[in-house]
């Protein structure tokens, strides 16, 4: 960081002004405890009010402020300016998503896919409320807990070259969340989710690049979820073929 200011190079897309995206550069007064989102907020408040980006919680929980920072998908609220030795720091919209404006991407594709895998507990028949909760042991919680930490920030999608090459790929976070509910002892919806996971562009499209896991701010490890989903799908299919009575449990 040079002195008390830092240079930002920010991706802009304003379709009413220019058909193609371009960059604007800003000098922002910087301190040691500032994150990239603070710098963007400074630009918005003091330099250029037209800059558009998403943010909300500022504490790595809401998953709104994901952007490409120097080419890597990051939550800008958790990315300190002091991490970067060279300037300008380049901030761009999340890679592979259609850009609506400046740093704001269109999340529709992600949200539709998320809905397809039904990321909620599905019961064949709900028991009456009077009978109480569906209890779980700590071990049963541990089975899926890691995969339940996903905040839908979509950084993993931007890190995934498979999604980049084929936007119809279901994608890391979506498969991780499907796997999370499949692992939940209270859930009975595996068959419904499997239909989506096993489609073309489902789990078998993943070539295990592994970058989704590297960029995940919540240590969800989507790459592992996808590979384990492949293993369990293959095992079940094999068992249904070679086991008597279709290997039903």
């Amino acid at each position, binding site marked *: 960081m040079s002195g008390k200011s830092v240079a930002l190079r920010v991706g802009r*897309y304003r*379709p009413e002004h220019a058909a*193609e*995206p371009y960059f604007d550069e800003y000098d922002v007064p910087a301190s040691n405890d500032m994150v990239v989102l603070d710098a963007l907020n400074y630009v918005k408040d003091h330099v250029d009010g037209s800059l558009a980006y998403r943010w909300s919680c500022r504490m790595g929980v809401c998953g709104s402020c994901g952007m490409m920072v120097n*080419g890597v998908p990051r939550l800008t609220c958790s990315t300190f300016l002091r991490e970067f030795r060279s300037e300008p720091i380049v901030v761009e919209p999340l*890679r*592979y998503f*259609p*850009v*609506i404006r400046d740093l704001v991407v*269109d999340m*529709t*594709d992600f949200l*539709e*896919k998320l809905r*397809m895998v039904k990321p909620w507990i599905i019961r064949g028949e709900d028991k009456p409320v009077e009978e109480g909760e569906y209890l779980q042991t700590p*071990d049963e919680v541990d089975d899926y807990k890691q995969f339940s930490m996903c905040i839908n920030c979509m950084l993993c999608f931007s890190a995934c*070259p498979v999604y*980049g*090459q084929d936007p*119809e790929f*279901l994608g890391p976070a979506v498969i991780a969340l499907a796997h999370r509910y499949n692992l939940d002892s209270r859930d009975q919806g595996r068959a419904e989710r499997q239909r*989506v996971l096993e*489609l*073309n*562009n*489902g789990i078998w499209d993943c*070539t*295990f*690049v*592994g*970058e989704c*896991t*590297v960029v995940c701010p919540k240590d969800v*490890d989507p*790459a*592992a979820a996808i*590979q*384990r989903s492949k*293993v369990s799908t293959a095992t079940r299919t094999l068992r249904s073929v070679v086991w008597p009575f279709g290997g039903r449990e």
Partner: protein
Amino acid sequence: MKTEAPRRYPVYVPKVPRTWWLRSAPFLRFAAREFTAVFAAAFSVILLLFLSALSEGRDAYAGFLRWLRLPGIAAFSAIILAAVLYHALTWFRLTAHIQVIRLGGKVVPRGIVVAALIVVWMVVSTIVAYLHVWF
């Protein structure tokens, strides 16, 4: 799976360059891991040629061994060995991510799983080498 509905607002859809795999070191390592599979396939072809020569009798087999010792083929074999080692070791590392092994209710750390895989691999290789030398 197509999920896109027609939009009522303009968007910019970025293009992915063909050279995306040159963009970062992890992508390059991934591309190298996948590309080394070509050498694994090449080794399978050599193995098939070996079996074919073996089935055709003593002369064909001796001819095949002479072919293997040609400098170009020997150099290619060395490249194959290096590539297959890279392929195998990178996949061992990834296998630890896929396979969760529990012992006594606790998850075995990934490093130990990878080390165990390498040890098993070296033991099997030693047995194969032993059989090759002594029989």
